[in-house]
């Protein structure tokens, strides 16, 4: 127990330290946030904040290397600076293969913010590693504590058993005392088994009731197990690439359908092909968590050389593990739900933008489907298809169907068998 407390104070101390750090540097925090945003919108498509070269050079150290005033001029309009014959500018231009950096619509304060961000980014890299190490320890502690509950339960059972045997001894001693008092024969000590049999003999009703409860519990457990066969809620398989939805859809706010392109017109939402990744990853060659390792797997699939930026012939597809598996006898169409029903992806897939590893959020059982079809209102407005259906209804049926003012999917036949099974 002592050991446990000692360990759990560690993260607390870490947190305390971080808090102090943040409160001290809170002035730069705001600028840093702005700087990050600005960097991403103006610079990130050609520059990394670190050392690696994309289209343009990595920007680590740029704040120390050049004078601030010169940087202002260069960033705002590098072309005029080169044309004015500025030696430093011409040198940079020549050094990077005479690729002109386009003029950026930013003011001096914004440039300062960007430079602050780049500086912070490079200085903070080791700190971030330390933070992840901490998180790892926290997890470990959690695992240990969950193990302890089992020990505690086992201990309790043991204590109870000891208590029972002690009480039995006490009761037996008392019965001897009482028998001696009354002058009767000293009763023989019954074995545990005999005692139990005796108890069962005398308390048949309780035993029967307990039996019923046990059978009911077993049946319930069996039923729960059976009904969950083939249900894989929370299924979270390891993927060949440690792709994080949290980073792409969450932090970077990329729209789901940017990658899952066919969700709006096909039955399947589609797993993006490797060439789609290259729209960004031709430039972004390093990720925040796994560095180059994971992104290199995309390059390997495409036989892409990140240095020369050329594609080779030896492509090999990425074999993702399918997370959402519907049985073959179910027909599901994404476009029906996305384009016509205008259902958010999250409704079925959960808060994907917070997942680091893709997982199945809902049970995907038929009951779950039907329940939603019963509750969901059909998006009829502005759709000529439903206008036509509506027009055909004679008055009496209109009254019947529109009693509650809404039309749900099931009222249009959305829970009939052949809507999904054929």
């Amino acid at each position, binding site marked *: 127990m002592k050991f446990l407390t000692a360990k759990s104070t560690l993260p607390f101390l870490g947190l305390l330290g971080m808090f102090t750090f943040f409160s001290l540097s809170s002035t730069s925090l705001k600028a840093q946030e702005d700087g990050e945003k600005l960097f991403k919108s103006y610079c990130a498509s050609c520059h990394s904040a670190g050392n690696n070269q994309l289209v343009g050079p990595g920007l680590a150290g740029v704040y120390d290397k050049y004078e601030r005033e010169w940087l202002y001029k260069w960033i705002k309009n590098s072309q005029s600076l080169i044309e004015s014959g500025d030696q430093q500018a011409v040198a940079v231009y020549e050094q990077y293969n005479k690729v002109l950096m386009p003029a950026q619509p930013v003011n001096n304060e914004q440039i300062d913010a960007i430079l602050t961000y780049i500086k912070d980014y490079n200085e903070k890299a080791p700190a971030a590693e330390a933070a992840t190490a901490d998180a790892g320890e926290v997890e470990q502690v959690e695992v240990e504590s969950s193990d302890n509950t089992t020990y505690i339960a086992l201990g309790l059972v043991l204590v109870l058993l000891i208590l029972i045997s002690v009480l039995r001894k006490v009761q037996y001693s008392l019965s001897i005392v009482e028998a001696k008092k009354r002058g009767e024969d000293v009763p023989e000590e019954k074995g545990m088994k005999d005692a139990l049999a005796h108890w069962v003999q005398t308390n048949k009703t309780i035993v029967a009731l307990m039996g019923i409860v046990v059978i009911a519990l077993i049946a319930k457990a069996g039923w729960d197990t059976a009904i969950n066969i083939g249900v894989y809620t929370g299924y979270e398989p390891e993927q060949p690439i440690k792709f994080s939805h949290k980073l792409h859809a969450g932090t970077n706010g990329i729209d789901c359908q940017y990658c899952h392109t066919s969700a709006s017109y096909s039955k399947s939402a589609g797993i993006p092909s490797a060439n789609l990744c290259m729209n960004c990853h031709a430039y972004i060659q390093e990720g925040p968590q796994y560095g180059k390792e994971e992104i290199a797997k995309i390059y390997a699939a495409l036989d892409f050389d990140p240095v020369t930026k050329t594609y080779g012939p030896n492509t090999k597809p990425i074999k993702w593990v399918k997370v959402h598996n519907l049985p*073959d006898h179910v027909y599901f169409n994404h476009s029906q739900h996305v384009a016509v029903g205008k259902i958010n992806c999250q409704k079925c897939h959960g808060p994907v933008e917070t997942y680091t590893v893709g997982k199945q959020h809902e049970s995907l059982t038929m009951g779950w489907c039907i329940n939603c079809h019963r509750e969901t209102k059909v998006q009829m407005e502005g759709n000529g298809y439903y206008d036509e259906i509506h027009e055909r209804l004679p008055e009496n049926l209109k009254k019947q169907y529109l009693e509650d003012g809404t039309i749900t999917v099931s009222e249009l036949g959305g829970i009939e068998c052949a809507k999904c*099974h*054929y």
Partner: protein
Amino acid sequence: MSTNKKYWKGVEELHDSPNFVESKNKEFSEYLPAEDFLGDKGLLEGSKTNRRDFLKYLGFGVTAASLAACETPVNKVIPHVVKTDKANPGVANYFATTYSDGNDYAEIIVKTREGRPIKIDGNKQSPLTKGGVNARINSSVLSLYDEKRYRAPQIDGSDVSWSKFDSAFKAELEKAITKGGSIRILTNSISSPSTLRLVKEFADAYPDADIKHVTYDSVSHGAAIEANKEAFGKAQLPSYNLSKAHSIVSVGADFLSSLPNSVGLTAQYAATRKPENGWISKHFQFESSMSLTGSNADVRVPLKPSEQAAVLANLYNELAAQLGQPSMSAPKTPYSAKIKAAAKHLLAHKGESIVFAGANEISAQKMAVAINYMLGNYGNTIDIDRAVYLKQGVDSEVTALVKEMNSGQVDVLMMAGVNPVYNLPNDLNFSDALAKVGASLVFADRPSATTKSVKYIAASHHYLESWNDQQPVKGHFSLAQPTINPLFDTRQMQDCILNWMGRNEDYYTYLRNNWKETAFTQQSAKLLFDDFWNSCLHDGFFTVSTEGEALSYSLDATSLSVPKTESKDWEIEFYQKVGIGDGSQAHNPWLQELPDPISKMTWDNYIAMNPSDAREQGFATEYGEQKDADTINITINGVVFENVPVIAQPGQAKGTLSVAVGYGQPLGKSDELVGFNVYPATSSKGGRLNYTNQVSFEATGETYQVATTQTHQTIMGRDSVVRETDWSTYKNGDKDDYNPPHMIAMHEGPKPLGDVDLWAKHPVESAGHHWGMSIDLSSCIGCGACVTSCNSENNVPVVGKDEVRRSREMHWIRIDRYFSSEEDRVPEDDQSYTLMEVAEDNPSVVHQPMMCQHCNHAPCETVCPVAATTHSNEGINQMTYNRCIGTRYCANNCPYKVRRFNWFNYQAYSKFTDFNPSTDDLGRMVLNPDVTVRARGVMEKCSLCVQRIQEGKLTAKKEGRKVMDGEIQTACSSACPTQAITFGDLNDQNSKVLAEARGDRSYRVIEEVGTQANVYYQVKVRNTESNIA
């Protein structure tokens, strides 16, 4: 009803034979040996599995099954590395291409899913084939995924690389060229202008060598070509326009199935059979075996094949007399009354008629030309200038080639699209001649009789993997484009020739360049070639108007004659079956299992004989699982066939036999032959005649198991299944005359059916959609294109001959063929049935497509204990496989007998591996991913192509518009070459199906039981003899 007819599905029903009476009330004809088994004590005691063991197995099995179910499946999902624009998983792509195998031709649309072609439909925009296909064409997609296809080129029977193959064969070519030897290219009729140009360039490239291209067709139309040459100086076939023909006379020609461009002819023919047009054509058919065409004729005259010429001669004289022209010498025939009637009708429709001759006999073909000329049909219904290039083979050429080969003069023989060892007559002895050729090569995509005896096998693409073009009719060009990357290491013929000529281009480039030089220059709508090419590729075809040339007709009565034939007891005719055709797709199990439209036989060819002849000879005339056919040893033109089955075929002319070509080839993965090959018995003397009197046979006393669907699914004596009338009754009469409403007897008197109902009205009318279908019995010719289309759309399993014999075929749609005879011909006191025999000799035929009728008050729905079959609010009777427990109550309670039960796991059980395509990974590629593959133990039936309905609705929803009428088509309605099947929304007030359902001819099958089916039928209208319009 105006006619008082009796309908019967087979001879046994007509005669109410004891066997039939006993079995007609049994749905399952098979004998169940339960009594034998349980009654046999020794067997029961001898069995080693006792009750306890059984329980142990059961317990173990259940546990194992549940454990297996617990296992989490790990499915991989593998996206493209680089995705192309149009390759979207879950979205179908459609490509316009062309089917042309030298026998059948159609412009088609191929549906591909995830890059795999899975369905073939007609190209609705095609002016030539008008969106039609036949069973052979829409089944051809299955051949692409045939396990037996060549994976690589072969030399002497072993796989080699293309580079090795090329160098070896090029050496052979060079050897022949340097010594100035002769190279022969033997092909079927090639109607591809680019291929023909390439072959010619190949020949021209080596002027030192003697290079010649020889054409022959498996089923020859050489006589017609030569007759036209004599008459017009052009060795070619004319094109027909049946859609204007009021009077059609066919003497032995099966133009709906066996003539070149039969798909186009079918569409034209159907246009003349719609009574709503205000007229219908009158169709006379003189023939010996009952063909698909003959079964649709208004007047059918059975005769011996050798009498066809005499009939034509008499018809000629009859017309010549009326038109004041010289007559020809003609022998007497017993059919003069029918010939006079035909002549009268033809004369009433001069220039609006067509006379066909079917015999591959120059004299008969010349008479047909002369008659058509006399009637002024050329320029109206027949266009000699718009030549049909689909058949070009002249029989003398191949005979000359064989002679040349035999003399050892041929150094190199290349063959493409032909199988001469299999389908040339025995008297040519092609295989011996082939052995004397220096080097032989065949372009083939699978083994055949010919590939066994050649050295070089150039493994070819399937047509769905190839580039090509076609000119089926002069001035009409079509393109064939690949719909899938080649599955194996194969190469098409044209690419091989380009390679061997040392030309550094592929056939695609060659094709494009040829079109740039030829077709592109014949139009002015598109300025850029790329635009032109892309629009042609998109549409699939390109038409130029051709200038008609003046006809120079040079036949007169003196040049016409009837060949003298020795009269013999028996004559035999060789014909093509609707499913198998000339046999180029005999390996295709969908086609083998398609019941013949007339005999309803599957998986076999046989000798067909008139039923009374058969009875006279002592042969069985009734067939079933327990009733086998008798066999004979038959000698045709000196070729002996032992132990072949004889089938009694109503409508077969007395004293004649007929037998289908195209059989005797191995099927699927096995080497077992299906049927027997009669091509060797055709004779090369005097062209390849399609009949002969050199035939004799003897009974063997043995029997043969045949698989027929004929006596299954009887109509149980109900006569409200088929309704028909004649033209004058339809035209002049009241609806009640030919399509009276059903009346229900009530205590207050008879009431129309619609007024009486025990059930609450099903709320499908006017709410949402109400899918329905209308089938026009006047238009349906019974070709079976709908059956095979349904097979490929709905993953219908192939069950094989043995299971068909047990009435377990799985087809969701069948075509019921009812023979009928005028009952009033039989006096009531006549118990001898002798007059009925007359009807049996020449019955009229009704083809009735039958599938789930989607009853609004469905008898099947009420008896299902688990609600696996239910009604949707769109009027569809839904079948939910994963809920079905297989009680089969629904099938028992269905008055239409359209539900099929999965007796086996057809995808996995070893019994079916030889022929069921979906038992291997390659064959499974043809499955429609939108339709569940059903498991053993569940019921299935027509779903009204609910997957297509759902898709059509979804498209409309996504585009924010209503569903257009005709936009959603079921597999059967889209495949129908006669547009007999109309599908649509009965709640759409402007839909075609609603108009038809409300029409005067509309009725529902077995309507009186109150099922309220959503499938309507249109009364068949015949232009029968008594009422010549």
